Every structure is written in C-alpha cells, then in structure tokens.
C-alpha cells in the first residue's frame, strides 16, 4: 500500500476576522522531506505553519496528517492529540511567546511533562537535549533574559526534546547575526538526520539552500510556485514577483540599469 503523505492540504482557506490569509492553498509534503516556505511579509507563512500544527483550522478545505483528517474534533481525542503534539513541533516566530517558563530547564521540561512522561525520563531527556543544543550552562536562567541566539536555541530545545517527526520552523534565523544564524542551521541539520520532516518558513533566500531541498513560494495565500531550491533561486522573475528580491536602479552617468539584489543578512526585522 502506498504511504499517505505526512501532510496533505486541499483547497485550504483561512481568514482573520474577514481578512483572508490563505486562499485556496493545496500542497502535499512527504515524510522526510525538507521544505522551505518562501514568501514576503504577510504572504501567509506563519498562518500555514499554524494550520499544519493544528492550532488553527481552515474555514474551508481539508488538512490531513498521515492520512488522518486534522479537525478540532480529532484534536479533542486525548490519545490522538498527545501523539500528534509529540510528533509535530512548531518553533514560533516570536521567542517571547514560545518561552513562557521561569527557567530554561522548566522550559525544556514543559513538553515532556505535558506528555506525562515519568520523572526520570523527563530529567534524562531534558539533560541530553540541553547538552545537544549547548544550553546546559543556561539551565537556571529565565529565558526572557537571554540573547536572541540563546532564545532561539532554547526554543528549539524545548520542542526537539520530544523527538518529533516533523519540525515546523517559523523564521528560525531572521533576527540573528550571521554567526548565530549558521549555528542554528547547523543544529537543525545535525538533529534532522535523514528521517525527519522539516518545514521552514523564511524570507531569507541565503538560507534556503541549507535548509531545504524543495521550495514552495507563497503568494497571496496560495502556492505560487514550487521547485528545487536551485530552480527557485535561479528564477529571478518569480522572486521579483513574490517580493523576495528587489531591483536596484543605479545611474552611471547617462546609463540607467537595473540589477537584482538578493536580500542579505541582518537587514530585515520583524
């Protein structure tokens, strides 16, 4: 029998109080894939990730996970909810939202405790994850007092401690300096290995190659284009249309010409 895709979305609509965010979006994501969701500000990346994490449910259309429909009713069943929450993890765009515990240790232990793991298991898993993420020395610090890079690592640790099958990342590097950025990307890659599914929302073209083999370009709430990282990055027309690059106009004497300008580190913020 053919394995159902990890995620399947069919004609999904979602709106915030009448303001449409997703507009007839359809996509399939297979197990073990690494996918980048590329799109300008407001194109619906965060909304899509929240739908994949079953935090939001579409107003129209279907979403399924491993062949099973993701509906509010399904998430009300304890058994399914716990297994879904363990298998699918989301790192939020804003770490101050994600980090709500008094210490880094409590933060990392939060997920395992909600899963009702035994005390010994919680302690050993949390310890191992903090070591993997290089945050053991931050153990007793309050998360909201950490630097941006440290916050991201704690946020990552707080979800991968559950050893999920799917990792959803919302702008994991957008506020980081280049060094922390590559650290975070290395951590994700090291953790991913071969079997994990990783879906990353970003508007930073320079990280796409490192984090994804397939790219979905979101435009106005639906998938505008899809292809390999190389194909998409080479398609200047598409990137321009999706507001991911901008044309710079220069004048050299009397000649005016336009050339592409790739968005680079540290120029963006939220």
């Amino acid at each position: 029998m053919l394995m159902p895709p990890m995620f399947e979305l069919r004609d999904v609509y979602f709106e915030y109080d009448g303001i449409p965010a997703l507009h007839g979006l359809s996509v399939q994501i297979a197990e073990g894939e690494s996918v980048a969701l590329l799109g300008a500000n407001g194109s619906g990346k965060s909304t899509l990730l929240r739908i994949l994490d079953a935090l939001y449910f579409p107003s129209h259309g279907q979403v399924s996970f491993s062949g099973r429909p993701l509906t509010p009713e399904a998430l009300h069943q304890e058994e399914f909810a716990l297994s879904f929450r363990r298998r699918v993890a989301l790192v939020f765009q804003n770490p101050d939202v994600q980090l709500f515990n008094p210490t880094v240790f409590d933060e990392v232990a939060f997920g395992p405790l909600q899963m009702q793991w035994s005390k010994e298991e919680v302690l050993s898993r949390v310890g191992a994850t903090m070591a993997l993420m290089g945050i053991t020395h931050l153990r007793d610090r309050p998360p909201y007092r950490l630097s941006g890079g440290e916050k991201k690592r704690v946020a990552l640790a707080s979800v991968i401690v559950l050893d999920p099958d799917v990792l959803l990342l919302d702008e994991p590097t957008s506020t980081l300096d280049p060094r922390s950025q590559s650290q975070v990307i290395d951590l994700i890659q090291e953790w991913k290995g071969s079997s994990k599914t990783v879906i990353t929302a970003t508007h930073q073209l320079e990280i796409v190659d490192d984090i994804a083999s397939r790219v979905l370009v979101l435009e106005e709430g639906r998938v505008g284009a899809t292809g390999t990282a190389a194909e998409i990055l080479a398609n200047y027309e598409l990137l321009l249309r999706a507001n991911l690059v901008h044309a710079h106009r220069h004048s050299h004497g009397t000649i005016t010409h336009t050339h592409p300008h790739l968005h680079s580190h540290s120029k963006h913020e939220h």
Partner: protein
Amino acid sequence: MARGGFLASTMIGFTRALARAMASEQIARQAGLLQSLDPRVRVIGLFTMVLAVMLSRRIAVIGALFVVAVIIAILSRVGVLMLVKRVWLVVLGFTGVIAFPAIFLTPGDTVAAFAGGPVRITVQGVQTATLLIARVETAVTFTSLLVLCTPWTHVLKALRAFRLPQEAIMMLAMTHRYIFLLVETAGQMFESRQSRTVGLLKGAEGRRITARSAGVLLSKSIELGNEVYLAMQSRGFRGEIRILSDFHMRSWDYLGLAAFLFAGCLSAWIGR
C-alpha cells in the same frame, strides 16, 4: 512642562519600574518565608490578606496589615527598597490621582476653604483619601509578594487545585507571567511617542493619545495571551498543567495556612 509630556514621562518611569519588578522571578527561587510554603498556601494566604484589607474600614488595622506585609517581605528576601521604588511610589502616584479629588468632593466638616467657599477640604474627605490609598497600597503589596515569590507555573497549578475554571486560570496566568512584557511594550510605546512629539502634547491631545495607547496595549495583551496559549497547546498542554514539583502539605504549611487565616479573619473583624 506640558501636561502630556509630564504624563508620558511619568508613564515611562512607571512602566520601566514595574517591568523590572515583575521580571524578577529570581526572588521566587531564593530561600525565604513565603518560598518555604506550599504554593497553594501562598495563594490562599495572601488572598485572605487582600480580602482582609478590603474589608477593613479602620486605618489602624490597615496600617497593622501593612506592617505584616513588610515583615513577610523582609523574611522572604524581597527588598524593602525595591518595594518602595517599584510598588509603593507607583501605586501612590496612581491612586493619588483618584484619591485627590475625594479630599474636596466629600461633604463634611470643613478644614479649609478656597475660592471664597465653594472649594473646601473636609475632614471626611481627607479620611476617605487616606483610607483609599492605604488600602490599595497594602493590597497591592500582598499581591506583589505572591507574584514575586512564586513561579507562575506554580501559581497556575495551585489555582487548578482550587478547581477554578480553566479560562480564569489562563487569564490570571498570562497576566502574571506577561505583565512585565506588556509593561515594557507600554514603556516603548510611550518612549517612541515621546521622541516623535518631543513633549509638545498638551491637555486634550495628550489624553487622547494616552487613551489610544491604552487601547492598543489592551489588544496587544489579549493577542499575546492568545499566542502564548497556542504555544502551550503546541507542546501538548490540554488544560491541565503538569509540572515537575509535586505539592505536598507538611505541618509547616498547615501552620502557615492557619496563621494567614487567623490574621486575616482577626483584622477583618477588628477593622469592620
């Protein structure tokens, strides 16, 4: 100084101070009197004290409760200087604004008259204002002690033990944990307003901007609360918070509980 400017700069000071005060979860993890008690005892005990303050109508009783609060603070390693700067002065500023008109508006025996009669300070007016300020100061001190000495996940679990509805608990928890963030946001909002308008705001304009900022702040706090709730759900939270530490009532906790209830009931009775 223009009134808008004054208001804004007071707000900046206030929000900065509160931000620092509320962010100090460090105190919650030190050894101290409140910290040694079961979180459920802390919640009931301090709530009883707040209730006693609210029920007392005698200034002497409220004064005594205030002293009790200060002693608890010292024994729980909450610096008195910090309370002065970050709680008492702030509350005085805010309550003062409300209490001040009462001095003039309450009918009673005139102490002094201005403007040829119609504007008068009355004994009853001064009493009303003093009582109001004393009450709020003392109640807020007890509340701050709970907030400062208890990690919010513990408050959450303690409240759950009293079978409070989930929504109420979530609201309280978010307020408790995120007050500092909101307050910081408020501070930033006022600062950026301030730097754009350079103290040129006057009267009505200043009030309008303040009102609008308060509105923005409120919707921001609701949004933040929702977001945090989603983040908790995403990691498996389904209404029942689970934390590593189990709560156990030992004889020390029963003693503390009895002391709080006794002190609370006694002062409410004397102060009635």
